């Protein structure tokens, strides 16, 4: 399904993305013996999720501070002598405890929930899961594992951050040593196949993609009336599964321009005269016919990966 001009660019990028995706694919064997494919979350997705979470945390703490300030101004309005000392003290205690909870319990609380993900992770579409054992059988995500992975977060994020803010890295040899030492933690996900951070390693967890997909409509049902287009075996054996899926994507996106270009490309390839009629109807019919053809072969155990196979 190549359109001449941009095809090579798209091809290169697409191939790189696909290679990356294949590298991140893992199989989990469920207790039913079914292999369940998982995709390891990319480092970018995880970094994005972390940034989102930190932003949420910062905003929440800021909101609390503002609320306290507002409360303080309210008290001051009453006349300063009337402000009960215990009330001020209570506010400060509450603030210290809120900071502590924000630092240690935000991640813990959300990752222990049924989605196994903090709000940031949910937005990005990833979740925490138990790493399968040597045989590949998946286990339960336990509370202990979530606690362990989040305790190490302290060394990985909060400690370097506070040192950065206080200029702890600029103090000569110790500063450099600390930077190297913490760098090991921060860069840990870059040095293993599963993108594990130190906390994941210690807890026996990993972070996987957890997309929620809607069931798309059945494309091959909505075909043009049979008989309008008839494709012979020779015409259908030009393409393979990869091209079928590309075509499916194009039909689902439904961009008129692309559909016309693709319809022309197909016509050229199978030696038809491209008509001026509805490109969508043609493509839908071709899709249904190609899928029927390939699926029939599939039932006989013949897979045709792509047009070169």
């Amino acid at each position, binding site marked *: 399904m190549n359109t001449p001009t941009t095809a090579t660019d798209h091809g290169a990028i697409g191939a790189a993305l696909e290679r990356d995706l294949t590298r991140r694919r893992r199989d989990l064997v469920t207790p039913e013996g*079914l292999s369940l494919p998982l995709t390891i979350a990319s480092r970018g997705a995880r970094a994005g999720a972390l940034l989102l979470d930190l932003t949420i945390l910062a905003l929440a703490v800021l909101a609390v501070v503002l609320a306290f300030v507002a409360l303080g101004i309210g008290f001051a309005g009453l006349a300063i002598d009337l402000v009960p000392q215990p009330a001020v003290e209570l506010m400060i205690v509450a603030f210290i405890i809120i900071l502590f909870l924000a630092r240690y319990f935000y991640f813990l609380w959300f990752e222990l929930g*049924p989605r196994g993900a903090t709000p940031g992770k949910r937005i990005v579409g990833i979740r925490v899961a138990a790493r399968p054992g040597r045989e590949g059988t998946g286990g339960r995500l336990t509370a202990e594992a979530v606690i362990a992975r989040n305790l*190490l977060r302290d060394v990985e994020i909060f400690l370097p951050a506070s040192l950065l803010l206080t200029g702890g890295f600029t103090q000569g040899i110790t500063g450099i040593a600390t930077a190297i030492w913490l760098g090991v933690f921060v860069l840990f996900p870059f040095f293993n196949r599963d993108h594990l951070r130190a906390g994941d390693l210690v807890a026996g967890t990993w972070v996987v993609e957890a997309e929620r997909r809607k069931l798309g409509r059945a494309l091959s049902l909505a075909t043009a009336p049979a008989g309008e287009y008839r494709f012979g075996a020779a015409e259908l054996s030009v393409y393979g599964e990869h091209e079928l899926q590309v075509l499916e994507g194009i039909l689902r996106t439904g961009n008129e321009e692309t559909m016309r270009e693709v319809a022309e490309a197909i016509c050229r390839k199978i030696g038809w005269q491209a008509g001026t009629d509805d490109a969508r109807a043609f493509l839908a019919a071709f899709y249904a016919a190609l899928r*029927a053809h390939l699926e029939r072969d599939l039932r006989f155990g013949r897979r045709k990966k792509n047009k070169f196979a």
Partner: protein
Amino acid sequence: MALPALFRRSGIAPPADVEAASLRSDRFRLERETEWRRLEAIVTALEKNRLRRISDEDLLDLPVLYRKAASSLAVARETTLDAALLAYLESLVRRAWFQVYGPRTGLTRWLRHFLASGWSRAVRAVMPEIGVALAVMLAGACVGWLLVSADVEWFYALIPPELAGERQPGADPAALRQSLSGAEDAGGLSMFAAYLFSNNAGVAILAFALGFAFGIPTLLLLAHNMALLGALLFVFAEAGLTGEFAAWLSVHGTTEITAILLAGAAGLHIGRSMAFPGNRTVLAATAQAGRRAAVIMAGVVLMMVVAGLLEAYARQLVTSAAPRAAIGGGMALFWLAYFGLGGRGKSGEP
């Protein structure tokens, strides 16, 4: 988006006419679509933690629906080339799997089990590491003492001046005694307690987290902290206040030092499992150790709350040595009994 969510309860739209489908794989899909959508609705409710919205019937059918979806996926992989359908089924089965085999214990149930037996058992399981950590801490304290007794300058090297205050070598015993006495009233104490707790818990978590590098940084941290203590002890012993200082320290110290000991031991446990995994893989050994250590650490944070409260309230309000020593000793006995006896004779996971 909102509308389907609203109408999901009222029923799932029936699929298109099965007979009309020309492809076998489409017929396969249309015949099972209703069940998939039902499973999806249940899983979505579970994910949102809306357990009450799920009928008993649905909940009973969940395992069956999950297995059916799983087998649909297995069949679909071999028969259909509809990429969107495969992606949907994979995502559905994965989501259902996470719910069916998800964490079964709620936080409250986990906590109950943790307090009743899980914590003590985890602590007993790392006894060798506790021994090592204890030895290192004692050695650290001795070194602190010896260094300061050999050369007073060490005191200033070990303890930052703003922390030491008037507790300095050669200080007036009266001033030292004064520094041990409590505050007159309870004003500001809860603030102090909260601060202490959050600070100490941070140190303990650090001691644990550093265990990752084969435990060496943990040992250094433990030794350093105890060297401070040894140095302070020397100062007070010089002024003839050993008893008072010990009593002053023991009020919260028995709890806090035990907590730091446990945190260090938990860190060492991870370090040891990484260095000597036995006949498991390094990853498996580390994960197992990490989970056990996490149980201990949850307890350590709890102990830090207790220690913070004792430090701020009990120590400042109880001013004479004997009751202080009694409180401290009592706490030490309590922890010993708890870790020694908790959860013995019971078995099983939560």
